[in-house]
C-alpha cells in the first residue's frame, strides 16, 4: 500500500503550511497594520470574537494571545458562538463604543457572519471581519476588515490553510493591539512573527514522519465508525478542529470533549475497541495529570488512543495506543500551539477519507443544495 496513492487535498494542505508561512505572515502583518486606525484601537476594552464552524474554534484558540499581549485591568476577551452574537448579543451605549466584535470567516459568505456584524453595529460596537475576501458579505457588513491575504491553493477545501491564516492573523492583531495600547513593547508584532516562523519551520522537519505515521494509523483505524476528540482549554479548540475535518472529509461522526467530562460521559460509549480516541495535550499544560488518568481510564476498556503532544512525559501508553510527538512552541510562546498542533489529526482525517474513498462534503448533490449557510435569512437586530 503506497502512501502516494492516497495523497489528497487535505493532506497536501497540511504539508503546504511551512511554505505558506512566510507569505501568510506577510499578508497578515499587512492586514493587521491596515485594519483599524490606531486611535480606534486604543479605545478598545472588550473584544468579542466569533465565527461559524471551525472559525469559532479559531476565536476560542486565540484568547490566550490577547490576554498575553493586551490584557490590563478592565479588559475582556471572549469567544462567542455566532448564533449567539447574531441573535442574543446586547450591548449598552456606555460599553458599546469600547467594544470590538471580530467575525472570522475566510470566505466571508455565511449569512450568520454578516448578521453578527450588523447586530454588533446596531448596538454601536466597532466591528471587524477577518477574511480572505474583502468584497464578501462579511467584508461589506463590517466597519473594518482584516484582510488576511492567504495565497491561493489548488484544492483549498476544507479550509485548513484558512484556519492557520485566521489564527496567525488574530495573534498578530493581539500583539498589535498590545503595542498601540502601550501594554506590550513596541515591535511585538515583529517578534511574534519571528516566533511563528520558527515554530512553523520546526514542523517542516517533522512533517514527513508525521505524514507517514498518520497514514499507518489511518490503516489501523480505517474501519472505525466513530471518534472521540479530547482536549482542554485551547487544546479543546484543536480537538474540535480535528473533529470538524473528520466530518467534512469523511462524514464520520466525532464527539469532542474535555478530559474531565469525557471520563464522566463519553467514556460509556459502546464499541470502545473500535472508537478512535484522539487526545491533544501540551507539555506545559496544567492538565497533564488528568490527561494521564484519562488515558489510563480509556485504555482499561480497550480504547485505541492517538496522543498528540510535545511532552516527553511517560503517559503509560499501551500497545494499541499511538503517540505523535510534535515540536514544542518556543518557550514563552506556548499560546502558539493551536496554529499547528492539529496537523497530525488533520492528516489522519485526510487518510481516513482517502482510504475509505469518501468524497469531501459528501460530493455535492443534495448535500450542497440543502445547506443554508449562505442562504439563511438574515434577521435584523
Amino acid at each position, binding site marked *: 500500500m503506497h502512501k502516494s496513492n492516497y495523497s489528497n487535498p487535505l493532506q497536501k494542505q497540511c504539508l503546504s503550511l511551512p511554505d505558506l508561512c512566510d507569505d501568510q505572515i506577510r499578508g497578515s502583518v499587512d492586514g493587521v497594520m491596515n485594519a483599524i486606525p490606531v486611535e480606534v484601537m486604543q479605545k478598545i476594552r472588550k473584544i468579542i470574537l466569533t465565527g461559524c464552524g*471551525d472559525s469559532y474554534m479559531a476565536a476560542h484558540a486565540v484568547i490566550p494571545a490577547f490576554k498575553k499581549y493586551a490584557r490590563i485591568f478592565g479588559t475582556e476577551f471572549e469567544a462567542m458562538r455566532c448564533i449567539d452574537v447574531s441573535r442574543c448579543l446586547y450591548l449598552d451605549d456606555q460599553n458599546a463604543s469600547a467594544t470590538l466584535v471580530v467575525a472570522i470567516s475566510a470566505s466571508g459568505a455565511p449569512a450568520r457572519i454578516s448578521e453578527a456584524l450588523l447586530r454588533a453595529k446596531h448596538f454601536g460596537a466597532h466591528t471587524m471581519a477577518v477574511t480572505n475576501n474583502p468584497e464578501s458579505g462579511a467584508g461589506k457588513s463590517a466597519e473594518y476588515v482584516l484582510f488576511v491575504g492567504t495565497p491561493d491553493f489548488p484544492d483549498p477545501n476544507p479550509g485548513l490553510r484558512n484556519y492557520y491564516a485566521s489564527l496567525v492573523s488574530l495573534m498578530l492583531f493581539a500583539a498589535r493591539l498590545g503595542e498601540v495600547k502601550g501594554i506590550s513593547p513596541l515591535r511585538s508584532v515583529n517578534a511574534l512573527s519571528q516566533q511563528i516562523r520558527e515554530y512553523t519551520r520546526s514542523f517542516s522537519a517533522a512533517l514527513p514522519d508525521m505524514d507517514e505515521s498518520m497514514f499507518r494509523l489511518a490503516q489501523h483505524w480505517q474501519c472505525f465508525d466513530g471518534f472521540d476528540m479530547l482536549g482542554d482549554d485551547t487544546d479543546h479548540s484543536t480537538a474540535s478542529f480535528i473533529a470538524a475535518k473528520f466530518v467534512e472529509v469523511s462524514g464520520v461522526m466525532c464527539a469532542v470533549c474535555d478530559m474531565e467530562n469525557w471520563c464522566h460521559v463519553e*467514556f460509556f460509549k459502546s464499541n470502545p475497541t473500535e472508537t478512535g480516541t484522539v487526545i491533544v495535550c501540551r507539555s506545559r499544560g496544567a492538565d497533564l495529570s488528568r490527561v494521564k488518568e484519562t488515558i489510563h481510564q480509556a485504555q482499561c476498556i480497550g480504547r485505541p488512543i492517538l496522543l498528540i503532544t510535545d511532552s516527553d512525559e511517560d503517559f503509560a501508553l499501551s500497545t494499541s495506543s499511538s503517540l505523535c510527538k510534535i515540536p514544542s512552541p518556543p518557550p514563552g510562546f506556548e499560546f502558539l500551539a493551536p496554529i499547528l498542533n492539529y496537523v497530525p489529526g488533520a492528516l489522519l482525517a485526510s487518510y481516513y477519507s482517502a482510504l475509505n474513498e469518501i468524497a469531501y462534503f459528501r460530493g455535492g448533490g*443534495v448535500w450542497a443544495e440543502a445547506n443554508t449557510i449562505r442562504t439563511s435569512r438574515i434577521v435584523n437586530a
Partner: protein
Amino acid sequence: MFDQNNPKDNPLCNQVFSLPGMIEEQVRICFSQEQLENILPIQDCFDIRKIILTGCGDSLAAAGNMVPVLTEFCDVMSCRAIDPITFTRFMEKTDIGIGEPNSPLVLSISAGGETARVLEVLKKASELGAFPLVITGNPESSCANAAKKAFIMKTPKMQNDFPGLRSYLANMVGIVAIAARLGLVRGVLEPETPEMWSQSVIDYVKSYAPHLESISDAMFHLAEKWKSFTRFDFIADCVSSNSALFAQEKFYEVTGSLGCAGDSEDFCHINYFVRDPETVGTVFFAYRDQPTYSRIKETIRSCVTLGRPVLVITDEEDDFGDGVTRVVIPKTPEGYTWLRPLMDFCPVALLAGYISELGERRYFHSFFPHTYERDPESLFFAPGTLTLKESKIEYIL
C-alpha cells in the same frame, strides 16, 4: 430483559413519571428558609459580585440551564457556567475575580460529594478567597467539607434512580432557590417572589402529569423506529443547549451511542455533513420565544431534505413540515420561560430509556436496566478503571 407487556418499566421512564409527584417535597427542601439563611447569610449575599457555576456531566447542564435566572434576578455583574477543568487548571486569578472577599460565588454541584474535580474547584475557590458553595446530597462528603457552605438537597429517595433524572431536576430547583434568596436579599425581588416561584415550579412540573402518557407513547413509537441507531445529534440554541447537552449525555449513558450537541448555525457547518444521515437520530429543541427560532426551522428543513429522522421538541402547535416527529410539551406561564428546562428533557429521557430497552442495551455499558445487575464481563467498572473520585487534586492559582 425487556418486558413487552410493561414497556414503561425502566429506570428513566419510572423517574420521568415520578417527577410531578416528588416536586412538592423537593421544593419544600430547597426553599427551606432555615437552610437558605444558613448557606447565604445577608452579609455574604451582598459580597457576591459575580457567579461561576460548575459541575461535571449533567450537573454542568443543570447549572447552565439556570444561568439566566441568576443573571436576571440577582443583580450580579456576570454569571457563567464553566466546566471544572477549565476553572481549576486554566483560569488564572485575574480570570476569576479581583480578590474581593466572598466573590465570585463559585457554585458547584456534586450529588455524591466525592467527585475529585469538584473538590478541586472548591479548594481553588477557597484559596482564592472566593465563596465556594456546593450543592450536594451528602452533608458528610469531602466536597461538603471543603466548601464554605453546603446546600443539602435531600432529594426524596426512589428505587432505581440511576442515572439520575430526579437529582438533575433537584439541582436546578436548588439553584432557583438560591436565585430567589439572592434576589430577595439584594432587593431585586419582591418579598412574596420566593413563594410565587416555588409555587410556579410546582405548578409547572405538575402540568406535565396529564401529558406524560401521550409523550411517552409517542417516544415509544419513535424508539421502535430508532432502536438500532448508534448516532444522535441534539440541536438547540440559547439556554436550551443545556437540555441538548443533557440529552446527549443520557444517550451515552443508557444507549452507549455516539452523540453530539450543537447549535442551529454551527451544525450546518459541521455535523450537517455526517454520512448515512438516514440513521442519525436528530433531535431539535425549538421554541418560538427564542431569537434563533427562524434559524432552527431552516436547519430542521435541511435535515429533513437530507433524509435525517427528525424529532422536534417544542411548546408550539407550529408546523415543522413533513417528515418531522413533533412532541409538544406544556407551555411556561407568561414571564416564566426559565421554568422550561426543569422539564423539557423528559421526552428525550423517555426516548433514551425506550431505545435502551428495545435495543437491548445496557446502562453505562455494564448494568442490566431491570435488575441493576452488573455484567461481570464488563470492563467499565473493573477495579482501578474509573478515575472520577481518585483523580489527583491539582490546580493553578
